[in-house]
């Protein structure tokens, strides 16, 4: 893993729970569907690690609620939706992320990036 990959991975680890809460906040969704949605938004690095342990932690912490629903011909799937605590956590987390991002932007905007062709 290169230094750049390592940094991306570390950054993602810090906010992946927030991203998952955001996806779940759009409506009930099951595990693999979340992976696909995150990838569709450019978070292909999600493939470096499985989201299941993180989903387990969100469930244990009471940030998500689950229920089983029949799927198209397959076994019932476990659908995740936000709990009221999860909604609050998402809102707080987004605020924290924006504050952190703005600070980092102000620090990094001073750097003149020279792009070589």
């Amino acid at each position: 893993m290169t230094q750049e990959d390592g940094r991306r991975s570390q950054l993602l680890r810090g906010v992946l729970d927030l991203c998952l809460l955001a996806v779940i906040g759009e409506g009930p969704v099951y595990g693999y569907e979340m992976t696909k949605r995150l990838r569709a938004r450019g978070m292909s690095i999600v493939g470096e690690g499985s989201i299941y342990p993180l989903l387990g932690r969100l469930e244990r912490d009471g940030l998500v609620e689950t229920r089983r629903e029949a799927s198209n011909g397959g076994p019932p799937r476990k659908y995740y939706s936000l709990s009221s605590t999860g909604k609050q956590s998402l809102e707080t987390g987004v605020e924290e992320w924006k504050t952190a991002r703005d600070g980092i932007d102000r620090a990094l905007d001073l750097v003149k990036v020279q792009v070589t062709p």
Partner: protein
Amino acid sequence: MTDFIEECRREWKRLGVPDPIANEMAVDLTADIEEAEAEGGSAEDVLGNSYFDPRRFAAAWAGARGVTAPATSVDTFAPLERDRHPWYRPAIIVAVAVFGFLTALAALALLVDGRSSAMVGPIRRIVSVPGAIRIIGPGSVMPPFRSFAGSSFAVQNSAPFLVLAFVVLLGGVVILGLAVLYRTSWPRRESRRRLW
């Protein structure tokens, strides 16, 4: 895929995850992998790098769900080792270990030198001591007791002493062993690395 799920099941069983929860996780995982494969993908699309380490994946998932014992959970919010074990614990263990070691050593020394005149009652029989008196070493005799010393000294009375010394030695070894076992049974600080 089947091998991966089976490996996870074995790990969950080893960790003591209740069967209903293990079944639920296995069913969810199977359904997701089957969907990925039906779309032309693979298990790696679902599991990422975890696909290559099913046991770690299974342990991390179960730990995150809180269905395994704390020692096997990968919990970054768990208190640090030093918080669970105050500073004086190691000092007590070291003291017990040193005591056990010294006791065992002393008992061993007494066993080897079973004729030590200081510990055994004198035989009431005067024997002349030929040659110079040795102060240090097996069979050494201190001046006040030299009149009691002799080649047959204490042989007939040493059996109870040897038994006692053996018991002390055994006790020392047991204390030492328990101290070492207790120390090694402490859970190591969990790695802060996790599978998200």
